Structure formats: C-alpha cells, structure tokens
C-alpha cells in the first residue's frame, strides 16, 4: 500500500495509531478486580423491599387454595401476593413466533394461578423488609395443592395415553420441522458404508455465578418505572414491561450495570422477574429479587435435552453422501417468551452436517412439552448438538472404512474457494475457511506426533484419545432471527458519539457488556475511527434512557454489529471535526486528520491544534466562528447486517485426553481451537471468549446434568450436586486464528463467543471414543460420566 493510500484513511487498516487488532486491556475491568463493580445486589436505595417466592414442590399440581393470613401477620411482611393479584397489573404471555410455523404454547402468568406446571414454578409472592423475613413468611403459607399426573420423559410425551399438559393445545407437541433435500434414500442405498447412532445430550443449565437479579422501582411522582436488571437486552425488557404492564415507553427505563455472567441465561423473560416489576408498581417502591442458588436451579432456563437418532452414508473413498437425523427435545411446560423454545431444535436442523459438501439431507425435529423446568436458548444454541451428531458420525464413518479421522474431514469439508455456498440445509455461507482451519489445527497440535505417542502408550496399557470436531457458528444475526417472526427484538444497533470540550469522546451504544469486553472493543473502534487515545473514550452501555435503541448482546452480535455502528459513527464524527478545524485553520478537511487527540496536517503529521482547543472554541467561543458554521459534535450511526441473514464463522477443535479404563475417569490433557471470526478486534479478548466457551462445552460433555426423577423432581439442584468445571480438572487450551473478514461490514468482524461451546463437546466425546477404540467400546451420552464410560466398557 502506498503512503498516499494510507493517508486517505479509508479503512481501519489505514488509520494511524490503530487500536484495532491489539490486545489492549479492558478499561472497565479495573473496578471489578478491586471489588468496586456494581452488580444489581450492590445497589442501595431507600425504602427497598425484598420479594421471595413460594415455589411448587410438585411438577404438576392444581392450586386449590393458599392460606396466607399467618404469612401476612409475620414480622416485616409488607404484602403477600397471589397469581391473581399480580395478574391484575401484569398480563400473561405466550412464547410463539410466526416464522416457526405451527409452534404453539399456552399463556404463562408471572405467578401461577390455577396450576403449577413444573417443580419450582412460583405460586405465591411475599414482599418484606428483608429477604430473610420474606422467606420466614413463605414458610407460613399453607398451600392446598392437588398433585396432577406428570409428563416427564420426552420419549413418551407424544404417546397416546400420556397426560396432555395443556389440554387446549390438543397434544404435547410444541413444534415440528422436517426437511428432505436431494436423494437421501438413493445415497444410503449406494453407500459403501452406513453408520448410525443415537446421541443423547443431557439437560444442563447456565449457572451464571451472579444469579438472576432485578430491582424494580415505580416512582408514582414521575410515573416512571426503573428496572435495574442483570440482563443482556435492556431495550427488549423495556418493550416487554411496557406491553404487559400497560405502560408507555417513556415510563419505563431499564438499566443494566455490571452483569455477573449471562451466557444466554439472562436474555429471557422470567415470571418471577416480571412479578417483581409488577410488585414495585403495586407497592410504589423499589422491590428486589435475587434468585438464591437453589431456586436458580429450578427457575433459570435449562438447556439442550436432546435425543438424536442419526445415520450417515459414505463412499469407499470417504466421501460423505448423505445424513439423516431425527431430533427430539423436551422444553418443559411452556415455550419461553419472547424468543421461544423452538429455536434450538430449528438450529440443530440447520447446522447438522454444515461444514461438509454433501447435498443429501433429511431431518426431523420435534419439540415436546413436559413437566420440567422450561428450556430455552443458552450459549451456542443448537450448535453443540449438531456438531456432536455430525462429528460423531464422521468418526464412525472413518472407522468403518478404515480412514484416519483427519483425512476424512480433509476430503469432505467445503473447499475454501467454493464460497459463497449453500449448505444442504439451505443456510448460506459468505466465506468459510475449513481447509485452512483444519491444516492449521493439525500443525498446532502436531497431530502425527500425538498419534505416534498414542500408539506407544497404548502398548503400555495407557489409553489416550484424540478427538476432532469441525464447527460452524451463527453470528451477527439479522432480523431473520427474531424480528421477522414478530418478536420486538432489535436487529440493528446504534452508536452515539459526543466530543467533549476537553477532547474526550463519550460513546453510547445499544450493545451491552457482560464480561466479554464489549465496552473495550467499542472504545478501541471509536478511538481508532475518531483519532483519539483510547483513554479519552468513555463507553456507556445498558441504559434505555441513555443509549441508542439496540438489541443488546446475544448470538455474538456485540463486536460485529455494535462494532460496525461505532466505526461508522466514529468516521462521521471525525468528518465533522475536520470540517470545523479546516475553517479555523484556514485549510480543507481533506488536508487534515485527527490523530492521538490532535488535528494534524495529513501529509506531514505535523500538529495544527489539539482537540481540546477545538472543543474550547466550539463550545465556549462559538462567537469567533463564521455564522454559517454549525459544529455538530454529536453524531449517531446505525448498523444492521443485510447481505446475509447471519455471518457464519467456522473452525476446528481438538481434544487430547486419557481414559482410566478401571475407573472411567477422564483426564483432559490439552485442547486446541482454530477459529475464524473475521477481523479480530482484540485478540486477547477473542481468545478468552473461546477458552471460556470451550470450558462450558467441556462441562456439558463430562459433568453438567440436570437430573430428574420420574415425578419431575430435579435431583441435583444445588451447586454441591450439580457439577461445573473446576480449574484443577481443566486443560490448557491453545487458540489459533484464520482471518476471513465478512464483506458485509467495513470492519469485517464476526462473533466469537459461542465457537468454543459449539465444538468442545464433540471433540471431547470423539477423543474418549478414540481412546476406547481398542475395547470396541463407544459412548454417545452426554455428560459422559465415569459410569457411562464403564458401562460402555462392560464393567458395570
């Protein structure tokens, strides 16, 4: 690139002193390491009341009556509210969207009125001066509950004779999707080998370390409801509160300060949180609800819970000819509002087989109701299931025809030069890099060396396994995700920038921060686009009164969509700055640039004036400027992806582990991931998103499971009994990148937050099966607890 081109400053690559692509530390993390963050429970406010909920002990029960007089008389109690009391101010909702044809669900109330449909559903609320007093009073409520027949097992949920949870819906089928592409039967008929399996991916849940938290405050004098919420999508919450409490938009403000982990858990509408909002409205004072950990396990959404029967046809040369799969998933008694619980199964259909060239594909997904905790979207929605099914079958196919697992993938991934392309399921890829990713991964891990080590150790009775998994990931969703189905969830995001008199920039943006580093990335982009030091940029997120309208942070949209809005806004502010500076300096905007907080001569870089001086003149001495010059130092730009419904990313993961064949214990030795999220705005932040995601995926593969008995009782709903990954059992993880920017934005960034979770379980399970190969043993159940491995080995 010539010096002249660089001077034009057309793309971020040309900007001098660019922060883009640098691992700068997060400016807002400092308060967190000092214990000076502001999570919802840290807020202090006058007249704060606390709510606790009585939750149904039965998975299905009719509420015949609630005797509340003792609770009402208990010390500190302000109000005891039943479902009917809350329903007077908060209307029920139904979690359906029109683009999921046939999806049905029943009206759900903030607090159950006639029936409780899962063990843990709130059936009565007590507001008191302290949480402890509210809980004391809860214990005094006498609930007259009539247990009803339960539907627990998703396998039998559709059988005749199984109790129908919502009689008015006619059956327990919430949603079904089928797909039949190409000549599947012909492909299976002509195949050299057909492999099949039933994969089971257990229910698990998010366990955000900060539990769900909300404080709602109705100020009657201002007619304003302020909701402080540990949440990912403040504008969505605002819209829903307006709708169900009958308030105008101007009367509802949602503020999300520090959020202690989200992972898709904190993006749904929870009945107990809506009840808290309603109680604040009724009581005209702030009311706080912090889920305690025990109630988190039975009220946070659960995830996954899939049983997939699948088969794959391959030729003798290892070419994948066709995939057929049948997914069954249980979602609890309601489709969750407003995103619905059909999305995950739909994604499994879309994504299965996605990295590969085959064009024969048949799929069916059925989503059924059951009396368990509601299930909905959690990090990497549907991806880990689709990847497990695909990559599990690929390994089985390789074994069936005697081919190396790396080689069969090499032969089947969509070629890097074949894009744009359309997968068998119909999803569109702008540009992927499977070939580069695979080769890079194999080099990084020294695949051949590991195979050699594996063989040597095997001879000594040590069983190690190598597991590979290719994945694709949906990021940067357009309105195709939710908007087209009628959900009022913003697909676009805006960024407003303001130049202050001292030369600092305030950036207000609709995407939000839950620890991913959103604010840092936005500051990097703004600093680069405008031409100021990053320390001069303040980022404001998570306040519906203060930021442009936006969707928040989910489905890996913060960097790709928020970042682009910030980039466009930054360029516009720089143009406005240069216009004013040119007049003051008797130059032209083209001949000037903004660098490191100073107006400089573009060609020579010589300083002409500081931004602080420009700010001084524009704000305090506008009388010295020509009458027709109107400095606009506040600008807003919006961005929404339009070319493609989603920006797909891709990558490849590998796991290396050792199985103790006497105990069934798995020791993770190392994990690798090569990932292509387009332009990398901050390499360290991306790598840590990947690593964190991998560990959540490992949790799903080996430990995490919401276990239920036949009556729909969750058996391990405490942190002591529900296992999450601990540091001592986690491996070191090496992360590499291939960079294929998306052409739909100038920055070219795609998302990276879910890739780790998407591919890790399949890599780990494939590695376990690789280790078990000498025993002809195979696990396809997640979590693959020691017991499952011993069962596969025929030892229990």
């Amino acid at each position, binding site marked *: 690139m010539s010096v002249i081109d660089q001077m034009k400053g057309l793309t971020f690559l040309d900007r001098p002193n660019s922060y883009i692509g640098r691992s700068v530390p997060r400016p807002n*993390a400092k308060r967190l390491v000092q214990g000076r963050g502001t999570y919802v429970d840290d807020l202090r406010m006058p007249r704060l009341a606390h709510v606790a909920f009585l939750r149904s002990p039965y998975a299905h029960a009719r509420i015949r009556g609630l005797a509340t007089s003792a609770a009402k008389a208990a010390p500190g109690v302000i109000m005891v509210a039943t479902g009917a009391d809350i329903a007077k101010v908060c209307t029920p909702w139904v979690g359906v969207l029109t683009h999921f044809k046939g999806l049905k669900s029943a009206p759900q109330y903030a607090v159950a009125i006639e029936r409780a449909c899962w063990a843990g559903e709130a059936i009565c609320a007590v507001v008191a001066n302290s949480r402890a007093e509210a809980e004391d009073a809860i214990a005094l409520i006498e609930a007259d509950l009539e247990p009803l027949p339960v539907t627990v097992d998703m396998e039998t949920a559709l059988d005749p004779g199984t109790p129908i949870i919502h009689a008015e819906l006619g059956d327990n089928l919430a949603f079904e999707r089928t797909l039949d592409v190409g000549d599947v039967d012909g492909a299976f008929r002509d195949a050299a080998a057909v492999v099949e399996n039933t994969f089971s991916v257990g229910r698990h849940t998010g366990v955000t370390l900060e539990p769900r938290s909300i404080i709602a405050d109705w100020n009657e004098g201002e007619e304003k409801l302020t909701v402080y919420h540990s949440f990912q999508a403040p504008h969505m919450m605002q819209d829903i509160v307006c709708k169900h409490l009958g308030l105008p938009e101007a009367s509802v403000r949602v503020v999300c300060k520090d959020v202690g982990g989200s992972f898709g858990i904190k993006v749904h509408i929870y009945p107990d949180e809506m009840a808290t909002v309603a109680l604040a409205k009724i009581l005209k004072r702030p009311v706080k609800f912090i889920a305690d*950990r025990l109630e988190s396990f039975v009220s946070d959404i659960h995830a996954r819970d899939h049983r997939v029967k699948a088969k794959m046809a391959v030729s003798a040369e290892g070419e994948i000819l066709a995939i057929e799969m049948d997914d069954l998933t249980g979602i609890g008694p309601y489709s969750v509002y407003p995103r619905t619980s059909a999305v995950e199964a739909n994604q499994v259909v879309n994504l299965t087989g996605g990295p590969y060239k085959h064009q024969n594909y048949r799929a069916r997904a059925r989503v059924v109701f059951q009396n368990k905790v509601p299930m909905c979207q959690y990090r990497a929605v549907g991806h880990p299931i689709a990847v497990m099914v695909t990559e599990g079958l690929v390994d089985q196919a390789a074994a069936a025809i005697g081919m190396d697992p790396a080689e069969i993938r090499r032969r089947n991934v969509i070629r890097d030069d074949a894009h744009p392309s359309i997968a068998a399921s119909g999803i569109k890829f702008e540009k992927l890099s499977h070939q580069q990713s695979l080769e890079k991964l194999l080099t990084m891990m020294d695949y051949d060396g590991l195979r050699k080590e594996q063989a040597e150790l095997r001879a000594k009775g040590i069983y190690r396994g190598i597991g590979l998994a290719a994945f694709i990931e949906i990021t940067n969703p357009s309105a195709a995700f939710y908007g087209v189905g009628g959900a009022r969830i913003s697909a676009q995001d805006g960024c407003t920038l303001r130049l202050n008199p001292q030369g600092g920039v305030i950036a207000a943006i609709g995407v939000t921060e839950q620890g991913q580093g959103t604010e840092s990335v936005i500051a990097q982009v703004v600093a680069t686009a405008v031409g100021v030091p990053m320390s001069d940029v303040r980022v404001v997120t998570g306040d519906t009164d203060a930021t442009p309208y936006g969707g928040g942070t989910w489905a890996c949209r913060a960097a790709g969509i928020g970042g682009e809005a910030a980039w466009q806004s930054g360029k516009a502010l720089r143009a406005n700055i240069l216009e004013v500076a040119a007049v003051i300096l008797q130059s032209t905007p083209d001949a000037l640039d903004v660098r490191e907080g100073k107006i400089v001569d573009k060609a020579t870089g010589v300083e002409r004036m500081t931004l602080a001086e420009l700010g001084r003149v524009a704000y305090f001495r506008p009388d010295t400027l020509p009458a027709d010059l109107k400095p606009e130092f506040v600008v807003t730009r919006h961005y929404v992806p339009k070319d493609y419904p989603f920006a797909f990313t891709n990558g490849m993961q590998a796991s290396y582990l050792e199985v103790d064949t006497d105990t069934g214990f798995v020791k993770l030795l190392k994990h690798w991931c090569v990932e292509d999220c387009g332009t990398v705005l901050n390499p360290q932040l991306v790598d840590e998103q990947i690593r964190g995601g991998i560990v959540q995926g490992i949790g799903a593969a080996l430990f995490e499971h919401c276990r239920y008995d036949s009556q729909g009782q969750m058996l391990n709903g405490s942190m002591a009994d529900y296992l999450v990954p601990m540091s001592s059992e*986690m491996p070191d993880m090496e992360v590499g990148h291939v960079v294929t920017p998306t052409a739909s934005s100038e920055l070219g960034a795609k998302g990276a937050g879910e890739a780790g979770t998407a591919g890790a379980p399949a890599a780990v399970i494939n590695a376990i099966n690789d280790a078990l190969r000498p025993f002809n043993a195979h696990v396809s159940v997640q979590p693959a607890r020691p017991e499952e491995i011993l069962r596969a080995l025929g030892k229990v």
Partner: protein
Amino acid sequence: MTPAAETHTISLIVNGERVTRAVAARMHLVDFLREQLDLTGSHLGCEHGVCGACTVQVDGIAVRGCLMLAVQADGATVVTIEGLTDSGVLADVQEAFLQRNALQCGFCTPGMLTTIAELLTVDPDPSRDTIRDAISGNYCRCTGYHAIVDAVQNVVVARRTKEAAE
C-alpha cells in the same frame, strides 16, 4: 423474642477499622459485610459454601463468608477485597489480571484474588498444577481458568525477577 429476632453485639476489625454492630444471630459474615458495612466487593454465588465468590480473610486465613456467622467473627480481624486493594498487597496480581484478561464478568474475581493472595503467601513459587489446585474451590463460569493461571504465573515470575534485582 423469636429466634429470628435474636441479636448480639459484635466488635471486630474490618479492613483496619474497628466496627461495633448489633447483628442478628443468624446473619452470615458475608451478609454482615455487604448489608451492614456496604462492602459489596464480596459476592454471593451459592450461599452454601461451594463457589468461593464470598471468600474473605479472617485472621489471615481465606474463609467462605457464607459459611461463617457474623457473631463468630466477634473479636476477629477481617479483610475483604476492598481492604486488600487499599493496602496494595494485591496490586501486582490485580494488574496481572487486567493485563492477561483473567476476568470476564468479574463476579468470581474478588474471591479468586483472595484465594490467590493466600496461595502466594504459603507458596511463593507455585507450579501451574499447584495454582490450578489452589483455586479449585473458586468457580469461574466465564474464563475457563486458563488466563487466571497465566496471570498468577506472570506474577510469580515478576516477583522473582524483582527479588533477584534487589
């Protein structure tokens, strides 16, 4: 008087300041610190002794603030993340966390740092495995732990280099 209403007066030193308060007999130490002293840096992730988010120092030892009653801290010396920050004993570890991005949401971080402070007092030169073992009682849902282990290792190396130079 109901048992729930029973109170006791306790006197202790918190982050170097003597405090005397009446507390409910059933109140946990971490709730006392958060609710009565507004020291909100200690967090509650489980309230049943598993996650480590509530870890504070009592008489120099890292303990779970959700497993100890406030009345048990009568006469004790308690240091929270706010105190560890102000005294500067953890400054290099905190800086290493920032540089290495060893935190995401930050909810586990105060407890994690308190545990690490204890580790580095007991073992100034821990191996990667020792670090992993030491923080195993502190859950982090965001980072995957790798960066935390890196950050502690970076501190260990930096402290050693500094010592050698002195």
